[in-house]
């Protein structure tokens, strides 16, 4: 919910550098997905621009135990603030507690730790993803028919949030639509098999929501191609596909008409505001809930604040917008 906005979390341009407070340690969550790789690339690019003294980043390979070890090492090496992206939010409570005891502020990117103090959470609203995808498909299908949801892993909060919001929205707004939920564990091979089987079983499926373009995009297109279901939206054969992430390949597919839309998860903004808030924390700044100067809203959490970055829906109309991060990477 939005609380009454008192102060503004106005983003200060990083000009007034002067005495920088200290080093920022950062842990990357993984190196094997396109979205995170873009994020990992933006970080070192943006650090000098924002005047952040960045330590060599560590990588926890999607393993919370490694994340904990990395954070220990970073704080041992003298980090004054830490940026992390815990893919597994239940199991870092002790770590956050330890960091709080050491007075090291934490910026959490992409996920919201359930417990333990955080200075700021920088993330897009995953529930909003699910809802937007649901609305997009529901409208395109006219409120009836069958859709497949290629889910991520149940153990991932983002996957769960997207799935829950998508399901709740469908139930509420489009009760005429049947949803098939496929737990793909973020694996392309599982996604392909499940979609193929489901299309065999229900040839009248008309919509697909993919939780992760990075892993689900190519298999989905390949299965639709094999079934000869790639057709223009006017064609009754057309299957509406909406993806999530906003990587360049999704844009390409939108341009080619292979998929219809994607939800752009702003890797560049994640990187920028992660560093921004880390530096702000070192500098002792404080923020209040309310709208910010960068089209987002800060909300209050029990254990800190969360800056909910905008996540635009990308369709054929706006796919060439240069402001989208997916159009900026090479």
């Amino acid at each position: 919910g939005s609380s009454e906005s008192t102060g503004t979390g106005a983003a200060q341009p990083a000009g007034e550098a002067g005495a920088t407070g200290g080093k920022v340690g950062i842990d990357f969550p993984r190196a094997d997905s396109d979205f995170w790789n873009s994020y990992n690339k933006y970080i070192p690019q943006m650090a000098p621009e924002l005047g952040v003294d960045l330590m060599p980043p560590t990588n926890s390979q999607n393993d919370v135990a490694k994340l904990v070890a990395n954070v220990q090492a970073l704080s041992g090496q003298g980090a004054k603030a830490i940026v992390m992206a815990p893919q597994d939010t239940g199991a870092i409570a002790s770590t956050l507690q330890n960091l709080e005891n050491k007075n090291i502020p934490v910026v959490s990117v992409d996920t919201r730790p359930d417990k333990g103090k955080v200075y700021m959470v920088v993330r897009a609203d995953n529930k909003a993803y699910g809802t937007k995808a649901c609305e997009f498909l529901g409208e395109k299908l006219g409120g009836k028919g069958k859709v497949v949801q290629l889910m991520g892993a149940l153990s991932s909060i983002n996957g769960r949030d997207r799935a829950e919001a998508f399901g709740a929205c469908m139930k509420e707004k489009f009760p005429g639509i049947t949803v098939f939920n496929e737990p793909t564990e973020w694996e392309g091979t599982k996604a392909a098999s499940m979609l193929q089987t489901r299309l065999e079983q229900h040839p009248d499926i008309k919509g697909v929501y993919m939780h992760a373009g990075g892993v689900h995009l190519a298999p989905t297109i390949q299965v639709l191609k094999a079934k000869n279901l790639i057709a223009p939206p006017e064609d009754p054969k057309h299957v509406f596909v909406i993806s999530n992430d906003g990587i360049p390949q999704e844009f390409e597919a939108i341009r080619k008409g292979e998929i219809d839309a994607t939800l752009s998860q702003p890797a560049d903004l994640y990187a920028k505001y992660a560093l921004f808030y880390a530096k702000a924390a070192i500098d002792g700044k404080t923020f209040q809930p309310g709208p910010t100067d960068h089209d987002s809203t800060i909300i209050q959490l029990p254990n800190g604040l969360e800056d909910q970055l905008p996540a635009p829906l990308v369709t054929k109309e706006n796919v060439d917008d240069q402001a989208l991060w997916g159009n900026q990477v090479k």
Partner: protein
Amino acid sequence: MTTTKTSSPVSAAPLGRRIQLGRFRDLTLVPVIVVLLIAGSFVDPIFLTPGNLTNVLQQQSALALVVLAEAMILISGKFDLSLESTVGMAPAVGVMLVIPVAAGGFGLELPGILAIPLCLLVGGLVGAFNGFLIMRFQLSAFIVTLAMMIVVHGLHLGLTQGKSLFELPESFLYLGSATWLGLPAAIWIVGALFTVAIVALGYFRVGRSLYAIGGNADAARAAGVRVERVVWVVFVIGGIVAALAGVLETGRLGGISANQGVGWIFMAFAAAVIGGVSMDGGKGTILGALTGVLVIGLVENILTLKGVPGEWKQLVYGSIILVALMISRLAGGKAQD
């Protein structure tokens, strides 16, 4: 090999029955497959349609090749965990040698038609390196290939920077996506390779020598089998077959993600072992391994059709494998190892 004396149950069995069963030992999963086919047809009428069964076969084709490779290696008494990483790395490197830098390539831009041969070559090299370490340095196959599994996947990650490769030469996608005579090309290819392997391991001297090596390497050496060389060649073939599995998978999925193949090796072992291939070497057949793949494929298909909720799917899946195991144990009548 601790030849477990299966005391009472076996020696009690009447002679005639034992011999007969012995001949069909590699087919102990057939009853399981029959049960699954029946169960599947109750779950959903679509199950028994040719379209669905073709899908099952196609979905399992890449895994089947990894199982084929692993079964050969297991029969010769060794281990290869790195196959799963080869499934991802070999196609990635093969493709990166031919695509432009902009699409994620190395910038060599070799002719696109070379991508598949290069991919197979890379797979063969990984196998050769494994074989070299294991046979020359007499290192444990398990641990060498465990380390190589990490190394090869690490190479994949490092070279691609963790990115998926999407812009692949058409020729590279062809095998995994084409249809020949109404069936996916992948099914024909896998069928052909399994036939070759079944014949080679059943009717040719080199093939039989795998059993001898796996059963008792010293005895095989005494009988004139060039143990080191044969095992080395098996590792190389294993690597090539795993790379081919990668080609088929890439064609099916239309891209190579940084995770391609990750986690497959457990499934490959499960398929081979429930199909009757022993982890101790010298035992089992390629045909048996194939039935193992089918069981796994059918179980997955039925669970998908049934729409078991995601959070319970693994439990159901694991339980079915366990039950399949017990059925094949009871049907086979032999202790496993």
